[in-house]
């Protein structure tokens, strides 16, 4: 089956992006941090089962497993491209992610976070679902090569393994908005949010937080599922288009975000920030659409 085309956009954040005044809305109501010092064996067994399902390459999440290498490669290649553009001629391409502080927003079971960490990034994976964080943590703790620490799970899960790994991996049950409030802006070299933006209630606020937590000159990677089969595309898209026509301004962001919409969103963000700060930097949007073969 030749299926969904996903497109990814990379944004070089403006130097002044943190000066934006945007309402930050929490995407989901979050339970307070789930960290508890005692997890009983039943719970461990429960999460082990979930984790096994999540990480089953041929199972329910098989599609995600197939997509993961593609998006990892994309991130790596784009970072390499950026580095060359910035004049770093003597770049070691294999190590382009090494030592970077990377935030994976909506990390799910941790597929992408683990990949980034293997490539040398110091990765923080966050997710609004406590269960996802448990699944991801359990899985990561089982790979000695990932120096893994968890701020939301007890020792057995979070035990940082002594093996020498390239990057550090941490998971936390939180939202990007809370993280921004706690860590402040300018905190990460790279922010990624893969196939998440179409699921959040207020994409504008969500993306604004993602942009703010990024360091100046940092990179934001977003991906969203675009609907390729023509009929499907037309149905969904025209409905949303229509909606936008009816209520201009309020529904710029549909649940089915299209690559060109993402691009224009960031252009808008750019122009509104220019208004508030005349000395704004450049925003450059690069996108790529790729086909993924699903066997």
């Amino acid at each position: 089956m030749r299926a969904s085309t996903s497109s990814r956009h990379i944004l070089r954040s403006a130097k002044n992006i943190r000066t934006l005044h945007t309402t930050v809305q929490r995407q989901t109501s979050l339970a307070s941090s789930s960290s508890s010092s005692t997890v009983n064996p039943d719970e461990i067994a429960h999460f082990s089962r979930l984790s096994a399902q999540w990480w089953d390459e041929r199972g329910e999440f098989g599609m995600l497993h197939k997509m993961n290498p593609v998006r990892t490669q994309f991130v790596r290649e784009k970072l390499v491209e950026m580095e060359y553009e910035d004049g770093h001629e003597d770049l070691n391409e294999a190590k382009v992610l090494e030592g970077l502080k990377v935030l994976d927003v909506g990390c799910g079971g941790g597929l992408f976070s683990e990949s980034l960490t293997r490539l040398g990034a110091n990765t923080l994976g966050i997710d609004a679902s406590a269960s996802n964080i448990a699944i991801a943590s359990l899985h990561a703790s089982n790979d000695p090569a990932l120096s893994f620490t968890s701020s939301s799970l007890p020792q057995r899960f979070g035990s940082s393994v002594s093996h020498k790994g390239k990057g550090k991996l941490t998971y936390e049950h939180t939202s990007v908005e809370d993280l921004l409030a706690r860590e402040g802006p300018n905190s990460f070299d790279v922010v990624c949010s893969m196939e998440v933006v179409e699921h959040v209630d207020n994409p504008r606020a969500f993306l604004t937080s993602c942009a703010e937590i990024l360091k100046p000159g940092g990179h934001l990677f977003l991906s969203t599922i675009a609907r390729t089969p023509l009929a499907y595309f037309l149905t969904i898209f025209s409905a949303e288009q229509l909606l936008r026509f009816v209520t201009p301004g309020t529904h710029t962001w549909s649940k089915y975000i299209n690559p060109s919409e993402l691009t224009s969103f960031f252009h808008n963000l750019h122009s509104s920030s220019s208004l508030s700060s005349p000395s704004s930097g450049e925003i450059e949007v690069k996108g790529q659409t790729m086909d993924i073969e699903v066997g």
Partner: protein
Amino acid sequence: MDPPENYTNRVVSLTPKSVEFMQEKIGSWDFINLDRIKFYDGIRAYDGQDNSSRISFDGTTTGSGVLAAMCENINIQSSLISKIEQLNDEIIDEEEDQPAIILDNTKVIDIEDPLNAQHTHSHSDLNEIDPSAGDEALDWPIIKLDNGEALQARLLVGADGYNSPVRKFARIESRGWQYDRWGVVGTIKMQFEDYRALGWQRFLSTGPLAILPLTDDNATFVWSSTPELAELLLKVDEVIFPHLLTAAMTLEEVDLQYIYKTLQNNPNDRSVLEDISWRLSKKDISDLEENYPLPVTELIPGSRARFPLKLSHADTYMAPRIALVGDAAHTIHPLAGQGLNMGQSDVGHLVQALEKGVDRGMDIGSTLVLENYVANAWPSNHMILGACDKLHKIFAVQWTPFVYLRGFGIKTLNSLGYVKDLMVQTISGK
């Protein structure tokens, strides 16, 4: 380490592709002992029951001018060890990674899947990891060694030969059959160094017999034979044996049967020497010089050995955290000298898949990484296995009408350039 003075009997024909792989990709060719490598330009193959049915394979088809290189297994092995040592030195200098560890003279006695293993210890303390049992939460196979140690691996590569314990652990089915043939090998000396630098192969009804050149006047032979003949070949007096080889490359099969019979009665019966030279004297000298290998003059004492010949192919080369390469994945009839070369090509494909996985931050034990390997390696191996099997079967038939057809086929094949080129490309790996 200096090589043994005489050539060892475990010798393989390396295709240009394998050599290139060792040069460009592995970098082990820098450490090969080139004094013990013989590049040769072509193979002259002919039918045991119709010597005029001939086919030649030449290196010109491969573009390099060289068809293949004869090389002792031990030469490859020591070059690989030297390369590993060199890489380890670099790793230690750069303090980047852990050096590779080689455990010599150590046998794998058991392989366990920690997730299915019966754990006897209690689960009272989940933070405690029992090192000898491995980490039971980790789905990495545990390899138990006869020195009492255990290893737990993200990816276990089974390069452990035909009886592969790794393949059995992974419950990967391997299908195939015994040929009821043995490959008798040995090291010999020819009358003098042959400037022709050719391999010779004769398709006898008992199986193909090949003489392949080594440096100077040295050569090696692989004689695929029925169980009875193989037994005889190992017993025949070391002085008679070289002449028997010459006879087997040259004389009519009926003559050979007669000679075998004499030797079966007494493997030391030197009267066959006279018989052989008399029969050879009836041959046309210029034909002998042009179309046959030089006479064999010496057998290196104690160099004869035999191996059972079989065909097998594993259904797949992977399972989660498992990859099979080489004879663990496939065993082939040695008539086209492909076994080790196929293993090299496996390793090439596996490395490619692993590199891709590493590039993308994947867990290299994942089947998503390994499936690229299988997809690239399995089909071409299957084709080569099938081709060699068919060749064996065609030539193992003695029925006369078929022999005529076969002769016709081989002549036609020789003139049908493109079919032949295809075969050479398979044989030389290009």
